[in-house]
């Protein structure tokens, strides 16, 4: 009975604990329901040769990364050197999903862009950006209207998906990849998935 006065203090500390835990979470990171599910199928024009397409089945049998990017995406600049360094190690192929290159850019008034101009404009912008910042991608594909992005549950750029040999999404990194995240999380997962048969 003596310790009864400690009860409110205990409850208060419990509340502080919960609130502190809440503060440590990042509400921007919404867990994807696609983890451990087959990657959504897609067939999109390649940035290097737009008359050719790349589909999900073309990547079968490989462990690979799908990195969502755009030239207008500021955070992509932050992770870009990390990707360029990663591509030089030749450990894992990186496919770039260029997301809404033209219409995603808030500074462009889409009413002034004729429909047939959007694709050439996107190609020019995306190629120019890779030329000046370095191209870490084995291949980039063009998601002009963002439809494939929706299928992948993309809600912010950059996002990166790790896909296994069977075409199943095994991990999703939201936001720019930091050197720490690459070293401590992504590369170990790549190595583990490559070891799977």
């Amino acid at each position, binding site marked *: 009975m003596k310790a009864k006065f400690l009860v409110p203090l205990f409850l208060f500390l419990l509340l502080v604990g919960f609130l502190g835990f809440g503060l440590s979470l990042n*509400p*921007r990171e*919404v*867990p*994807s*329901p*696609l983890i451990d599910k087959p990657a959504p199928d897609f067939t999109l024009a390649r940035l290097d040769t737009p008359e050719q397409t790349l589909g999900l089945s073309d990547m079968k049998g490989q462990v690979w990364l799908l990195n969502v990017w755009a030239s207008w995406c500021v955070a992509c600049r932050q992770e870009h050197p990390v990707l360029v360094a990663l591509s030089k190690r030749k450990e894992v192929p990186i496919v770039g999903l260029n997301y*809404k290159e033209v*219409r*995603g850019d*808030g500074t462009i008034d889409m009413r002034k862009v004729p*429909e047939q101009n*959007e694709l050439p404009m996107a190609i020019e912008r995306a190629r120019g950006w890779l030329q000046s910042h370095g191209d870490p991608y084995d291949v980039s594909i063009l998601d*002009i*209207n*963002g439809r494939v992005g*929706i*299928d*992948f*549950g993309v*809600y*912010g750029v950059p996002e990166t998906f790790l896909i296994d040999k069977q075409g199943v999404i095994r991990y999703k990194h939201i936001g720019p990849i930091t050197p720490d995240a690459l070293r401590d999380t992504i590369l170990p997962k790549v190595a583990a998935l490559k070891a799977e048969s």
Partner: protein
Amino acid sequence: MRRFLLACGLTLFALAGHADTAAPVAADPVLEERVMALSHKLRCLVCQNQSIAESDADLAVDLRGQVREQLSAGRSEDEIADYMVARYGDFVLYEPPMRASTLLLWLGPIVLAVVGIGVLMIRLARRNKESAPALDEAQRARARALLEENDNDGTQA
């Protein structure tokens, strides 16, 4: 009538399929109302305290386009909600579904209320018992005498 509606829906879908994106507003006000009603139940992932009906974020506009396109293609509200959940998770729903993982969320307030009322009732019952202390015969007599004395004072004054 149903056939006519279906034909209208299919025509709209064909038109939407032609344009690269769905038109920002459906020509049919009834359809637009359904689009907005469903959009109000879906959370925008970019600006998380707004629904995709209220938000002007790029993604919200795209997702509204999806809702519009799929409704005009004849899919039901539930099917479209499932489509969104499959891509973005339960988080897109403002009203989360009842599941093992959300049970605490749904039942928590009820459990807390029941526990609170229970504790209150037990304490009140205990207090009632305590507030009637037993007096022995001598104490009763004394109390009666005091009360009578007071009464007499009252009548004399």
